[in-house]
């Protein structure tokens, strides 16, 4: 009960300057806390507002979804966390329909980075990253289609897990891209990341796993080095050197990323086509043109991208015959400023908002499990490192993470 009251007080005190929360459930939280029991007893948590919460409309960052009927039940992942004693205290801001990496939401305002409020918190689970980093809640749920857990975890200096595609149920969450959507936790520390994941998953527990003896660890070079600022890459290199990681190249990462980009554009455009026809003026101005363009894309491009994804997957699986875990930077740079249109990577200028996910997209494209770990700061802002394993081997991610924590 005490932790829940502290969380509610912290939200009241801090969220005015951060804008992570779109709803706070004080009454519900107090009622749940009174009877909470289990391994997560009394741990306050919040969810990205694309998770169904009984009695309220699932906004998914949009204005349009305010017209939806209230959710009839909580998302199963909320139910699992609450069955283990955790207490839901609120819903969190995000990019509209999860299409973005910055949580600069025109309807609900931008979420600010707790390390420097002039900067973005990352996205699309930006409210989740900021709420944890600001110490308002120690645990949050987010979604990750192209990097939306890992980018905010990196920008906010916290832990994030994107499990294997298909590992955690997506029931009771508002979709973005059916072929690529994942759900997962963001947490203030590794123990809570592991404990929360364990109560949501059905596989072997990962809490308490340690020891990296026998694990073959690689450091991603090539695409992942070329698309990160030198200071950012250096932080990953330092960790990799501690683990005596060998340099490896994830084959065809650029074309894997391209396939994810095309699949995302097409599926999201098709998903929202009925509302693009009826009420385009109600969409987020930052994404409506992208959605319209995606909705007009030829099916041949989409199907080719799905084939390329399979082709890319087969090549990456060959790499996992020689290593068990791959380390790579999570974001090319630390968080850009709110409103910033362009940034540079190794002297090359590019659009800031879509390219924050340059290093995460090739990994989620083929559903690999990844932990994003905080590894240091650049220009006074945090950046994270991806700990990537073969499908269904979250245990290997946690072993390496434990050696870092």
């Amino acid at each position, binding site marked *: 009960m005490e932790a829940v009251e502290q969380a509610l007080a912290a939200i009241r005190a801090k969220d005015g300057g951060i804008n992570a929360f779109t709803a706070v459930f004080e009454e519900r939280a107090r009622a749940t806390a009174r009877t909470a029991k289990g391994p997560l007893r009394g741990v306050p948590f919040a969810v990205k507002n694309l998770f169904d919460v009984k009695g309220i409309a699932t906004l998914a960052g949009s204005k349009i979804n305010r017209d939806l009927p209230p959710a009839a039940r909580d998302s199963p992942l909320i139910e699992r966390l609450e069955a283990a004693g955790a207490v839901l205290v609120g819903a969190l801001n995000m990019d509209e329909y999860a299409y973005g990496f910055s949580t600069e939401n025109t309807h609900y305002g931008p979420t600010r980075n707790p390390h420097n409020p002039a900067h973005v918190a990352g996205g699309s689970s930006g409210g989740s990253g900021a709420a944890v980093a600001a110490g308002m809640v120690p645990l949050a749920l987010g979604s990750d289609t192209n990097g939306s857990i890992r980018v905010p975890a990196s920008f906010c200096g916290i832990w994030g897990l994107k499990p294997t595609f298909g590992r955690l149920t997506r029931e009771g969450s508002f979709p973005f891209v059916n072929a690529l959507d994942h759900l997962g936790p963001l947490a203030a520390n590794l123990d809570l990341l592991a404990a929360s994941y364990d109560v949501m998953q059905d596989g072997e527990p990962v809490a308490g796993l340690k020891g990296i003896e026998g694990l073959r660890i690689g450091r991603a070079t090539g695409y992942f080095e070329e698309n990160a600022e030198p200071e950012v890459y250096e932080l990953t290199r330092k960790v990799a050197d501690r683990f005596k990681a060998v340099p490896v190249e994830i084959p065809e990462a*650029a074309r894997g990323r391209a*396939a994810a980009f095309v699949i995302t554009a097409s599926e999201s455009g098709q998903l929202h086509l009925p509302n693009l026809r009826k009420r385009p003026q109600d969409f987020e101005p930052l994404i409506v043109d992208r959605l319209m363009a995606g909705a*007009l894309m030829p099916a041949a*491009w989409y199907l080719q991208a799905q084939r*390329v994804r399979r082709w890319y997957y087969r090549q990456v699986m060959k790499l996992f015959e020689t290593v068990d875990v791959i380390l790579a930077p999570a974001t090319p740079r630390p968080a850009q400023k709110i409103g910033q249109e362009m940034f540079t990577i190794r002297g090359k200028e590019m659009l800031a908002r879509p390219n924050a996910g340059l290093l995460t997209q090739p990994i989620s494209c083929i559903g690999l499990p990844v932990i994003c770990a905080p590894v240091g700061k650049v220009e006074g802002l945090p950046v994270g490192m991806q700990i990537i394993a073969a499908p269904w081997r979250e245990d290997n991610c946690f072993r390496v993470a434990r050696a870092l924590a």
Partner: protein
Amino acid sequence: MIEEKDLTSLSVLAALDLPEQRIRAVLENFRRIQQVAQVVNAVELGPEDEIGPEWRP
């Protein structure tokens, strides 16, 4: 790269009215997708890359 008139034809096929003030921005976005799709379309694939009923890792 696609031209405005081509985009307008596609929008008619999709029954999606493009508001006048959005056409330029939608065209820019479409061209960006087209550029990336060219990278994807250039990959030479074999029968083993054909899509199954549902993708799983």
